[in-house]
């Protein structure tokens, strides 16, 4: 780490350091943009992935904590803290031109914390209505219902966006337009059969060709991060099951690991093995749903039912052990909440046994079909550079040949001991993304086969204090969820409630490439691309 410090001090003498689970660099706002350029372009640093962007309110000041990963330097992570000089009129330079993923992330930070990003091309709110008063994640936010009543009128389409640019040492607002006046804009969503939830794409089309996609999000935004601040650590766990409900186990695993990291808690091996098995079962169930939905969005309704037939088996396994088929609430701080059902091993073995046969059947009924191939191949091209720049992790990133599996890059739990392959395909199109998922089902079965006969005896839960209090500090933890790298950031002030929790969800980034992937394709391809990227809306609207 010391050499990184040397390089950083060389390029940015004003930087100071803070030791945490990830090295943190404090950079003054005035030097931030130049430092960001060095971070991205300096070959010695080469932090090409913006993993997370966390807007923060430290009561006296506001600012942003960035987490970067370097794909060339062994996936080393670095965090950067930038504090705004003025709390009431907070400005930070945008890095959305360096890391494209920052585009939506900065809009989120603007929406929830009121930090304006200089030179951001489209500084609109992301989740909340245009007429919302205040910025909820600010500690001095006034939650009085009189200020923000339940509005019964429609939100006016905001075609007018704005940019904040520096002119002669002063920051000025410059209006800009989302769509041109003569664009034919079709509204796809928020209630639409193929947006996989309450998501809205304002799509400018020319005949059948898509010219621009404007993502309008927030229809089911529940303010989970805000809610977390008023609850104790055990109480915030259940929110993770309700974000990406198809990665409920992985998300909760991540939050538990982050809290355990803060507590310095050792999780019993039995619990770790159970957690990993549940994660992989969840991944199988998620990919089966994804298969079904892709097929259905392309019009092959029968294949959808075939996918669901096997998914039911996975859900039955969950139901027996966790007592629920969705929102399982299974992981708790220090382990898992209940021991495995006596049928668990038998059911898992049965699943592993039938899966290869069924995967062949799926290929026969859907992806082997010439129509499906024509619909998927070459559609929604996302080159590797863009995948990295937009931080598209998970099966979608691996379909662009980007090796980004968190289970390999930042191994956690018992994954280092397991023998499995990271599935990589270089098609960069929807077909590759689809095939990666199908092959990952095989790999998950392989992992389950290794563990099912080797579940150690022992406790399912470590001893956890009655009141969980994390020491002062901040932690960042990531896991490989079904749709990509899921991250949790916790900042604690030593109390029993977290000071700030941020969830870095993979689907948030996935929806960010919709515009890039869809441009120049047809309307039908927009649906295909959405299905192959496989975003889940509650994960975006946290």
């Amino acid at each position, binding site marked *: 780490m010391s050499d990184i410090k040397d390089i950083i001090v060389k390029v940015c003498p004003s930087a100071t350091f803070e030791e945490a689970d990830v090295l943190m660099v404090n950079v003054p706002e005035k030097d931030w943009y130049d430092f960001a350029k060095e971070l991205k372009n300096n070959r010695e640093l080469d932090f090409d992935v913006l993993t997370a962007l966390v807007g923060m309110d430290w009561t006296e000041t506001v600012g942003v904590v960035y987490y970067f990963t370097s794909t060339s330097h062994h996936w080393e992570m670095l965090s950067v803290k930038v504090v705004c000089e003025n709390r009431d009129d907070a400005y930070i330079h945008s890095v959305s031109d360096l890391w494209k993923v920052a585009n939506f992330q900065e809009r989120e930070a603007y929406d929830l914390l009121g930090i304006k990003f200089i030179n951001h091309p489209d500084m609109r709110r992301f989740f909340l209505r245009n007429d919302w008063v205040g910025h909820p994640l600010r500690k001095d936010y006034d939650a009085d219902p009189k200020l923000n009543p339940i509005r019964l009128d429609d939100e006016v389409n905001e075609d007018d966006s704005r940019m904040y640019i520096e002119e002669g040492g002063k920051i000025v607002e410059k209006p800009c337009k989302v769509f041109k006046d003569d664009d034919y804009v079709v509204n796809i969503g928020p209630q639409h*059969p193929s947006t996989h939830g309450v998501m809205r794409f304002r799509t400018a089309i020319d005949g059948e060709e898509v010219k621009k996609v404007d993502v309008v999000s927030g229809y089911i935004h529940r303010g989970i991060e805000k809610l977390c601040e008023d609850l104790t650590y055990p109480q915030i766990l259940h929110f993770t099951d309700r974000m990406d409900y198809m990665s409920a186990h992985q998300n909760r695993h991540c939050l538990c690991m982050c809290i355990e990291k803060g507590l310095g808690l050792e999780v019993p091996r039995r619990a770790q093995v159970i957690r990993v098995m549940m994660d992989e079962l969840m991944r199988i169930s998620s990919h089966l749903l994804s298969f079904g939905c892709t097929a259905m969005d392309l*019009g*092959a309704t029968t294949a959808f039912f075939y996918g669901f037939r096997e998914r039911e088996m996975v859900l039955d396994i969950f139901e027996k052990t966790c007592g629920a088929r969705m929102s399982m609430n299974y992981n708790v701080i220090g382990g898992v909440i209940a021991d495995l059902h006596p049928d668990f091993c038998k059911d898992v073995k049965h699943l592993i046994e039938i899966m290869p046969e069924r995967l062949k059947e799926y290929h026969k009924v859907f992806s082997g079909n010439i129509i499906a191939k024509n619909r998927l191949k070459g559609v929604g091209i996302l080159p590797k550079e863009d995948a990295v720049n937009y931080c598209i992790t998970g099966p979608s990133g691996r379909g662009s040949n980007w090796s980004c599996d968190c289970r390999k890059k930042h191994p956690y739990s018992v994954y280092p001991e397991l023998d499995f392959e990271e599935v990589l395909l270089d098609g960069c199109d929807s077909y590759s993304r689809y095939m990666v998922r199908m092959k990952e089902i095989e790999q998950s079965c392989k992992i389950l086969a290794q563990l099912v006969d080797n579940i150690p005896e022992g406790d399912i839960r470590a001893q956890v204090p009655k009141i969980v209090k994390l020491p002062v500090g901040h932690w960042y933890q990531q896991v490989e969820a079904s749709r990509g790298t899921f991250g949790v950031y916790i900042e604690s002030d030593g109390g029993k409630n977290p000071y700030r929790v941020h969830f870095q969800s993979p689907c948030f980034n996935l929806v960010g490439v919709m515009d890039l992937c869809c441009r120049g394709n047809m309307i039908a*391809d927009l649906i295909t691309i959405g299905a192959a990227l496989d975003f889940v809306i509650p994960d975006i609207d946290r």
Partner: protein
Amino acid sequence: MFNFGQWTAAFNSWLMGLGTPEWLGITIECVIIAVLILLTYTVLALFYILYERKLCAWFQCRLGPMRVGPWGLLQVFADMFKILIKELISLKDTDRFLFKLAPYILITSSVVMLACLPWGNGLQIINWNIGIFFVLAVSSVGVLGILLAGWASNNKYTLIGAMRSGAQMVSYELSLGLSIITIIVLSGTMNINDIVLEQANGWFIFKGHIPAIIACIIYIIAATAETNRGPFDLPEAEHELTAGYHTEYSGIHFGFFYLAEYLNLFIVSGIASLMFLGGWMPLHIPGWDGFNAVMNWIPSIVWFIGKAFFISFVIIWFKWTFPRVRIDQMLAFEWKYLMPFSLANLLLMTLCVAFGWHF
């Protein structure tokens, strides 16, 4: 073989025997026929809805409707009554007249086509020398209903749906027409009844061998596209355009689109059975007199409806197996492959007929 014409002739002479003037007699007969046709239309459409729901359920490891009536048989009646009593929602900023006219255009064209089909021996309403040509002409009127519906709804989805439908219908009508012309070359007549009688010593799909089989395959593909069914259901692609051209319709106006869709499925299947499988003509093999006599025992109406249901089954099978094609792929398929192929096939059939290379 029993000729249904005896019944109609008997009824006619009974009616005239009562001393009815000729114009009144004809009017009464027309009214009876119209009522019968509309009844058949409704019953068939209801049957088809159940037929498709049950078939699709079996393809998808499900049971389909089971609760209303024995084996779910009354479900479709319940659905029909529901749709009859639903409100017809009128929308702001639509072209009211065209909006209401569109479903009637569609349903009229399919009722007229239904009237042209040869239901059985002597059981045909319209029989004239350009029969099949008339059917093709009327089928093209239906697309006008779809275009109007899409345009008059004043909705972007419906407009895209109608636009797609227009492109699709115009394209696939060519292959449809060419494959029918191929058979007309073989039969030498466009009179529907004569086409059936020509097949007394063997169905055209056997008599015309290779070109007839190719024409049959092309016809079924084009007919699937023509009826807007999967994999060519782009005008109403529910995953892209929610419901395409009929998104804004409610109540019985939507019901008309729905019924017309199923009836068109029956009609194209009926025409396929007429052109390739002998219409109501039983399966005859020249020389096998005993076998032919046994086949003649089965009523001609059963032959016709059975063949039509079989071809509908194949088309329904397509829908529940294949993913949907994309608009550019669909048009490329028609213009680059299907139509040149149909033209070549027509040439082949002409040669076969000219040199007598057929049975």
